């Protein structure tokens, strides 16, 4: 068990609390810096998707995890960022212009979406954000002079200060990693300042936040704007990674994937957003594996147990048909969410904390340490 002896207020403020953090994050960075040279192009590409999803995860964490406002519309913010990038790039602007522009524009849209949040709570806010997402999807499909409608838009390689950064290059990998790191540091800074604490205050008790001088409306709009702006930045990277964007890429399912990122990761800290992003990006290859390899493996297995050749083939075809059924991905996502909400509401990061504490306190770990306490007394909510 590590006890930190504090002798200075600086120690409450700094981001890396002790020497162990320097070691572990240093090691993580070394691995991430070496990774593109060591792993194949497929895994490198998956890592880039992890970074992009993690940026969105951080954005959503600010809004959902820290401010307590729901949103099932983040695919729309991603789309706005992506389309701003594609449109401005087609007009000949370089990356260093349209990247911030996408962030700012998405942030403004986010602030506008945040205004209804001043009056809406819980599930009603979710409904409002879903309808916002549908509106954006529809606008993208219909506003053909700007978005080329359902034909979609081609996105060329990044021109960054005269350098061409193609979407499969290691430079693109480092660009995404760098932006993710900057977003994380910015968010951590925000969360150790008055604004971040105001977000937490709004999440836990609006009444108390109000009476402590937090202007609820202003901070909710802020939270929406910041979250949207970060998602817009991720949208630009997403557009470049995909190299082609069309309205049907930014559907409700994508928004739900983003929500899953933070539910699976654990909606109470930035670690959760990263872990969730890793999980979600890796689900796709797992489903592909389920489809391609598992039926053959089971068929071979049943042959080994003396099942006839015809029967084995029948099993393989049957399983293949099941695993390649349309909508399987959605069903698996649904199942994963339900399992996490039921058995691990604190997500992967919560599980990690439990494991860590188990070894720190060994053999004294108490199972109830992380059990959520139910409060039965709440004074009247002045909503």
């Amino acid at each position, binding site marked *: 068990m590590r006890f930190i002896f504090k002798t200075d*207020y*600086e120690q*409450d*403020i700094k981001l890396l609390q002790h020497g162990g953090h320097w070691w572990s994050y240093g090691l993580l960075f070394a691995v991430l810096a070496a990774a593109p040279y060591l792993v194949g192009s497929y895994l490198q590409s998956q890592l880039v998707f992890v970074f992009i999803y993690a940026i969105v995860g951080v954005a959503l964490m600010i809004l959902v995890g820290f401010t307590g406002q729901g949103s099932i519309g983040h695919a729309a913010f991603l789309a706005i960022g992506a389309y701003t990038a594609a449109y401005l790039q087609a007009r000949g602007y370089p990356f260093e212009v349209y990247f911030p522009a996408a962030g700012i524009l998405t942030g403004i849209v986010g602030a506008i979406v945040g205004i209804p949040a001043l009056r809406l709570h819980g599930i009603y806010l979710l409904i409002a954000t879903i309808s916002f997402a549908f509106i954006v999807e529809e606008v993208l499909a219909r506003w053909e002079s700007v978005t080329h409608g359902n034909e979609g838009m081609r996105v060329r390689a990044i021109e960054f200060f005269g350098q061409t950064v193609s979407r499969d290059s290691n430079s693109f990998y480092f660009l995404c990693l760098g932006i993710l790191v900057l977003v994380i540091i*910015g968010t951590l*800074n*925000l969360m*150790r*300042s*008055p*604004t*971040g*604490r*105001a977000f*937490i*205050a709004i*999440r*836990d*008790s609006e*009444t*108390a*936040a*109000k*009476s*402590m*001088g*937090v*202007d*609820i409306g202003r901070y909710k709009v*802020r939270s929406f704007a910041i979250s949207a702006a970060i998602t817009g930045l991720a949208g630009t990277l997403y557009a470049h990674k995909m190299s082609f964007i069309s309205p049907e890429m930014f559907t409700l399912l994508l928004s739900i994937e983003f929500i899953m990122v933070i539910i699976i990761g654990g909606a*109470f800290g930035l670690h959760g957003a990263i872990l969730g992003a890793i999980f979600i990006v890796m689900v796709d290859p797992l489903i592909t594996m389920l489809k391609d390899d598992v039926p053959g493996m089971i068929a071979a297995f049943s042959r080994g147990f003396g099942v006839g050749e015809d029967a084995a083939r029948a099993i393989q075809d049957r399983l293949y048909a099941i695993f390649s059924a349309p909508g399987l991905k959605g069903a698996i996502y649904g199942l994963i969410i339900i399992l996490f909400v039921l058995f691990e509401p604190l997500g992967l990061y919560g599980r990690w904390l439990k494991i860590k504490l188990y070894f720190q306190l060994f053999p004294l770990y108490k199972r109830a340490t992380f059990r*959520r*306490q139910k*409060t039965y*007394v*709440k*004074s009247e909510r*002045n909503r």
Partner: protein
Amino acid sequence: MSYFRVDNLSLHFGGLKAVDAVSFEIRQGEIFTIIGPNGAGKTSIFNMISRLYEPTTGHLFFEDRDITEVPPHQIASMGIARTFQNIELFDNASVLSNLLVGRHCHSRTQLWQEIMFMPNVRRAEKAHRSKVEEVIEFLDLQAYREKIIAGLPYGVRKVVELARALCSEPKLILLDEPSSGLNVEETDDMSFWIRDIKNELGITVLMVEHDMSLVNRVSDRVLALNYGRVIAEGTPADVQRHPDVVAAYLGA
């Protein structure tokens, strides 16, 4: 003029008159207690002072300024802080960050400065932190700094809520039943702290309380309410002897 004045204040929910034409004055540096049976309108008055409820009629004056129209989030920066009857803390945050939220009305840093954590933000954070430490020292919360509220016992939460209110450096503090749910020992501590808040910190206290022994020990003046109306005002002893108060509590 008076320090804090409530003038003809009413709050009606439809036909129900929760608070009915209540007027009183609080002098600077005193402990003023509102008593009354359940549903007498005590907390409603508090909620109107902290602007969570809109008064049906009447006005509130603080330091000769009409605060009836001030939005709720500006009340704290005017120097009025409050606690809640059933504890409204930020449950999933540490005691420290709860107390730092209490400093919110004193923060002057801009959003972009915070995102980059500029030197001025760092300086402000340290200043807030040392102010919070003073309050921690004052209320003996040293053992709980890093603890998450959700895991703390009720008595400690009650003190943390008082601490959060003090962190905003108020001139007037509203305590909604500071001793409810506390045991005898904790109530004793609370009564010492309330007197210290008045004597050492020079903060005027407006309090709602049911525990008459605590009321007698700390209050300078007492106001008794029943069914939203004032039935008596004066020293604790006078009010307790008042026939209408006896009738309200014991039945006529």
